[in-house]
C-alpha cells in the first residue's frame, strides 16, 4: 500500500508527460520542419510515426503552436496547390528558426546529460 502511494498514478503520469511535451512542442516542430517543409496533417502523422506512437498531437495543440512559431518569425507558411487541386499550407523553417533550433538542441543536450548524470549514475 505504501509503495502504491509512492508510485505515480496514471493521471500524474499523463500530467507529467503533458508538462514535458508542453515545454518541448516548439522544439519538436522546428526539428521536424527543419528536415523537410511539411503541413499540419503530415506533422501529426510524422510525429506519431517517428516516436513509435508516443507523440499523439491534437489539432488543438498543433495549429496554435505552428501559428505562434510563424508569428515569432521561426517558420513561414506558404499555400501550395497540389495537382489534384487541393491546397495545403506548407511550413518552412526560416534562418531565425534554424538558429533557434540549434540553440534549443544545445540546451536540450546539456539538460538531458545533466539529468542522466543524476538519475542514472554510472557508479
Amino acid at each position, binding site marked *: 500500500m505504501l509503495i502504491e502511494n509512492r508510485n505515480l498514478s496514471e493521471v500524474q503520469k499523463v500530467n507529467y508527460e503533458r508538462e514535458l511535451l508542453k515545454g518541448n512542442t516548439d522544439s519538436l516542430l522546428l526539428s521536424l520542419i527543419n528536415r523537410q517543409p511539411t*503541413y*499540419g*496533417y503530415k506533422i501529426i502523422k510524422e510525429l506519431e510515426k517517428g516516436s513509435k506512437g508516443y507523440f499523439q498531437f*491534437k*489539432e*488543438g495543440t498543433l*495549429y*496554435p503552436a505552428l*501559428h*505562434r512559431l510563424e*508569428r515569432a518569425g521561426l517558420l513561414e*507558411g506558404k*499555400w501550395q496547390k*497540389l495537382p*489534384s*487541386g*487541393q*491546397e*495545403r*499550407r506548407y511550413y518552412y523553417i526560416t534562418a531565425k528558426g534554424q538558429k533557434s533550433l540549434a540553440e534549443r538542441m544545445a540546451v536540450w543536450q546539456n539538460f538531458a546529460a545533466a539529468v542522466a548524470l543524476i538519475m542514472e549514475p554510472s557508479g
Partner: protein
Amino acid sequence: MRLDAVVENDVVREIRAHIEDKKHELIESGLSEKEANRAVCRSMGSPELVAKQIYEVYSQGSWVQAIFAALPHLLVAAFFALHWWQSTFWLIGILAAVVGGAIYGWFHGKPAWLFPWLGYCLIPVIAVGILLVYLPGGWAWLAASAYVPLALLIIFSVTKKIAKKDWVFASLMLLPAPIMLGWIMWLWILALEGHHGFLSYEQLYEFAPLIALTFAVLALTVATFIRVRQRWLKVGVLLTLEIIILGIMALSRKSSINPVGWIGLILLSVILILGPALLEKYPKRTSGKPLHLSSKSVR
C-alpha cells in the same frame, strides 16, 4: 476567432484541409462517411478552445503598435500638460494628426491601434452638441432636440460597424468618452459658477496637470490592452483602469461634480465598455466561412 480577415481565412482554410485529409484516411480505413465525419469532429476537440488559442497567438500587438495606439491619448495629455491650447499651430497639428492617423488606419486593414484614433474623430460630433448650448434663448433646446438623436445615431452606427469586426475594439474606441464627459461636466459647472458662463485661463491652468494625468493613464491603459494576449484580461484592463481614472477624478478635492454624477459616469463606463458585446451578437458575422465537412474529398 475575431482575427484579421486574411489571417482568419488562412486558419479556416488550413483546418478545413486538415479535416478533409483526416476524413479521407478514415473512409479508406473502412468507416462510412457519416462515421468519419463524427470521428473527425470528436478528434478535433473543442472548436472554441482552438479558436481561443489561435486568437491568443495573434491578439498581442507589438510595442510599436502599443505606442501607436497610446499616441492620441499622449497627444491630448501633452496638449494640457504643455499648455498647447494657447497655440493654433499645435491645435491644428493635433487635429490633423488624429484625422490623418484614423484615415490611414481605416484604409490599411483597420489594425487594433486605429480605434483610439477613431474615438477622437467622434469628438467634433460631441463638440457641436455642446456648442449648441450657447445658442440664444429657445434655439438651444430646439437645435439640441434635433441634433442629439442625430449625434447618437452617428456614434451608434460607427460603434456597430466596429463591433462587427470585434466588440473589444468598439470598447477601445469609446474608452475616453466618460473621462472627457467628466471633464466637460466638471469645467462646465465651474464656468457656470464663474463670470459670463466661460472658463477662465487661470482655471484651465489649475486643472491642466490633472487632465493631462488622466489622459496619460488612459494611454497606459490602451498600451496594456494591446500588449496582453487574453481576451478577458484586455476587457479587465479597460474596465479597471477607466474606473480608477474616474475614481481619482472623483476623489480630487476640487471636484465640482457630486457623488451621484460620478456614479453615473462609472455606470456609463461599464455600459460603453461591455455594451458593444451586445451589438456584436445581433449582426451576423460574415468574415470567414463556417467550417463544414464536405463530401468531396480530394487528395
